[in-house]
């Protein structure tokens, strides 16, 4: 059975689930790679939803989210 290697990912967290939903909608519209995930336990004990993307998209995502008025809570680079 193949072992799934952990990869470095950018994890963007939001203050509300609605923020994560808006981020997903925007990234789909712009064709930016990524997906919604449950916020990793190592980031917070909250049980929210985060956006996981390749780390090289960090500056693009930060700029796009700011332009769209999507309020982020934090950006983390984690092996997932």
């Amino acid at each position, binding site marked *: 059975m193949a*072992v799934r290697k952990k990869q470095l990912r950018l994890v963007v967290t939001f203050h509300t689930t609605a923020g994560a*939903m808006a981020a997903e909608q925007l990234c789909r519209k712009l064709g930016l790679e990524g997906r*919604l*995930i*449950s916020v990793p336990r190592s980031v*917070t004990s909250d049980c929210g939803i985060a956006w996981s993307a390749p780390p090289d998209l960090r500056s693009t995502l930060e700029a796009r989210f700011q332009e769209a008025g999507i309020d982020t809570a934090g950006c983390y680079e984690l092996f997932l």
Partner: protein
Amino acid sequence: MKQQNWFREHGVILLTGVIVGIAAIVLTACGNPKNMGFCIACFERDIAGALGLHSADKVQYVRPEIIGIVLGALIAAAAAKEFRAKAGSSPACRFVLGLFVMIGALVFLGCPLRMVIRLGGGDLTAVAGLAGFIAGILVGVFFLRRGFSLGRAYPVRQGEGMILPGVMVVLLVLLVAVPGVLRFSEAGPGSMRAFWVISLAAGLVVGVLAQRSRLCMAGGIRDAVMLQDFKLLSGFLAIWITITIGNLIIGNYNLSAVSQPIAHSQHLWSFLGMALAGWGSILLGGCPLRQLILAGEGNGDSAVTVFGMIVGAAVAHNFGLAGAADSVAENGTYVVGGIGKAGMAAVVLGFVVLLVITLTHLPRKEQA
């Protein structure tokens, strides 16, 4: 290897599920009502009764399990430096949502955790509740996808985050030092209780583990549906399996849809009651157990939700909204329990209120 990774990632949540299951079995063996080792809704209802907020004399007792869960979560959060006092996310709406989640749960006769415990005892009447709970969660997820939000919480002073733990400490002091000021049931479910030290210890253990694992009955199904992430759901399943095995070992497993402890056979209203609880839990961001844990971590909005649930329990019993268990009459006839017209009206009103709160917290067109 893949299996090893799976167990590493799911270890804490699986362990939590197993311990919660064992704790529920032990509490029942030590005196709690059958299939009610834990029930957040029922135990908050008992606390409301003990404080005189309702006068249903069979359901009055300050349940140390609730105190233990909140204080356990506080201890775990403080030890991990995760205690964060925050509040301000539509507290009034949360109070009302908590109230109707409680009414829905008491119509069914149990919170989502007790629903799983009932299933683990072989109670087939709980299947309707499970179906309703899933349906309610799907409705909630539908609106989450459309941007539903009660707004963000903001950091507040530490004291705000200590409100519910503080209330729990006061309740514990009253229970142990001045029980005369409280009401205690002499018959019925409220009179069936494990020794308070055992109940408190079980609550503390569950509170610590649930804080570490983020165990949530509603969150498990939400994550599975929205994110195809089955981690939280595995905790839910671990409780079910552990309780099933435990009940089989001690001979308490009774696979049947009749004569189940503190349960009724009005399946439609079990379905609708838990649909109300499931939808409300998704809007609140967690099931009743999760609200206690979040309040223990310093979330003032969850503390308000818990107060809403306690008031909801009082309303449910003062206005005859809660379900009555099936029973056997003196002549041996099986009497189907359930809810009356007032309870049915309350459930319908609950759906209307949830819909209004949902629609008024969707993004406006220019925001969408």
